[in-house]
């Protein structure tokens, strides 16, 4: 089996349920997919369950949320049933996550340098000098031109794009196998988006990582990723190659594509998505390779 064929991550029949006062709410309903050394995009609107899927894989969902799956295999080993202690060594070290707004995911009272060093020290046993060197190296790898200055600065002194690059540096310093990026560029200006994406792109390629890119932006995902999964109401409704997205068959995907205003094509009216209740009921499509 060639390197390209082995699956880094295999998810089968993932469910995430939340008990509420008026019954159980199923955020993710029977999602199955696999991830290799590729860029996998998960696209959906709010409430589709895309973010929950990412968090469920990392077991970040706390009570009263309930996560269950037939299997979640990381390199063939099940990570659903391992203890919380063992999971801690997986999180960050083997699977990492970059979230939407660096304002909310960076600690405001620690310097950037301290945070990156902490992220490194959690998974490696190096001297302080070595840790600092690695941290500065990582800052350079995300195209930060003055790493010493940024090292000593606080998160609120950074712009959005800078903050997100620091997040990426922090998340990649332990050299994980898989990166889950949950709307990493949605809070950024469009010109900064390209910069951050290209850094993520480069690093993922260089290190042979798998990337799960969660977003609501269909165009962005189809131009950035290799494969795309479209989620609706907790299920995957379509899985296809990114460059074949415009040939998508499911009416929801088509509806989403058609309801977007296009720069290159003027339209009198935007097509309004008509939600068919049958979409909720249909079986989840498998996102396996």
């Amino acid at each position, binding site marked *: 089996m060639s390197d390209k064929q082995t699956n880094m991550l295999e998810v089968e029949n993932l469910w995430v349920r939340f008990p509420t006062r008026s019954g159980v709410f199923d955020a993710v309903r029977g999602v199955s997919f696999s991830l290799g050394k590729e860029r996998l995009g998960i696209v959906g*609107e709010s409430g589709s369950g895309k973010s929950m899927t990412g968090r469920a894989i990392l077991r970040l969902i706390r009570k009263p949320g309930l996560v269950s799956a037939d299997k979640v295999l990381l390199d063939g080993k099940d990570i659903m049933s391992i203890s919380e202690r063992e999971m801690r060594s997986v999180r960050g070290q083997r699977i990492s996550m970059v979230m939407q707004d660096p304002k909310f995911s960076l600690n405001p009272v620690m310097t950037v340098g301290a945070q990156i060093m902490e992220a490194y020290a959690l998974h490696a046993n190096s001297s302080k000098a070595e840790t600092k060197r690695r941290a500065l190296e990582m800052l350079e790898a995300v195209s930060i031109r003055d790493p010493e200055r940024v090292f000593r600065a606080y998160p609120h002194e950074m712009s959005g794009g800078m903050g997100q690059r620091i997040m990426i540096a922090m998340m990649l310093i332990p050299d994980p196998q898989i990166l889950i990026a949950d709307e990493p560029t949605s809070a950024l200006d*469009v010109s900064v988006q*390209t910069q951050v994406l290209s850094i993520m792109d480069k690093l993922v390629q260089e290190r042979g990582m798998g990337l799960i890119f969660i977003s609501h932006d269909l165009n962005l995902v189809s131009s950035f990723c290799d494969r795309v999964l479209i989620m609706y109401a907790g299920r995957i409704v379509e899985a296809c190659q990114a460059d074949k997205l415009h040939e998508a068959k499911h009416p929801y995907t088509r509806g989403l594509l058609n309801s977007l205003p296009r*720069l290159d094509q*003027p339209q009198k*009216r*935007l097509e*309004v*998505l008509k939600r068919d209740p049958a979409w909720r009921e249909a079986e989840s499509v498998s996102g396996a390779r």
Partner: protein
Amino acid sequence: MSGISINNLNVWFGEGINRVDAVKNASFQVDAGDSFGLVGESGSGKSTILRALTGLAENWSGQMEAAGEVLGKIRSPAFYKKVQMVFQDPYASLHPRHSVDQVLSETLFLHGFDEIDTRIVQLLEDVGLGTSFRFRYPHQLSGGQRQRVAIARALAPEPEILLLDEPTSALDVSVQAEILNLLVDLRAEHQLTYLMVSHNLAVVGHMCERIAVMQNGEIVEVMSVEDMRAMNPEHAYTKHLLKSSMGYDRSAVL
């Protein structure tokens, strides 16, 4: 003349060393009945121009004219009847403890309308919400529904000009389509003038006929939407913005 005219507008915050110039020397015209877009990234000053127009900015200089009235330090009640605004975040633009009915009846009352009940029903219908939404509170409404209520509130005084501050950027794609269609319909029905602020070029291209591109508080280019679609910009920043809006181009980067 019922359009908007901005001349050499400067808006700043703070004094002395702390002074931040949010808008520098901006000038543009919007004719009555037109739809004009202000495009730029965050910090470009586009939303600040809207706030200056509505009297929500304290320090400004230059000339502003809207709906036939030359604008000074304070806005008259007549101004608020003719110029209204729809805010960006539907989750923040409705008072959490006021029902839809309260929001609309207060608006109508403040502008001195009578027959408030009938008008409320009519407004809800105009924005595509049925009467079943009338007594709901904001937390019982979805983002798209809240934005419709915000639009109904803006339409209540029967304005001539609507200022739209990124009205769909906080909404899902499918909901965005509905709201944009609604705005297009309302403009035709009520002969409104739109000044729309957005960072999304595709949305602005759909809604507007002419646009002004802003960067760091300055207007760098004013062009027609046709020219934008033809990828015919003159200024380098506009070119850059257009390119970035087209999605990720791997070949260009690596």
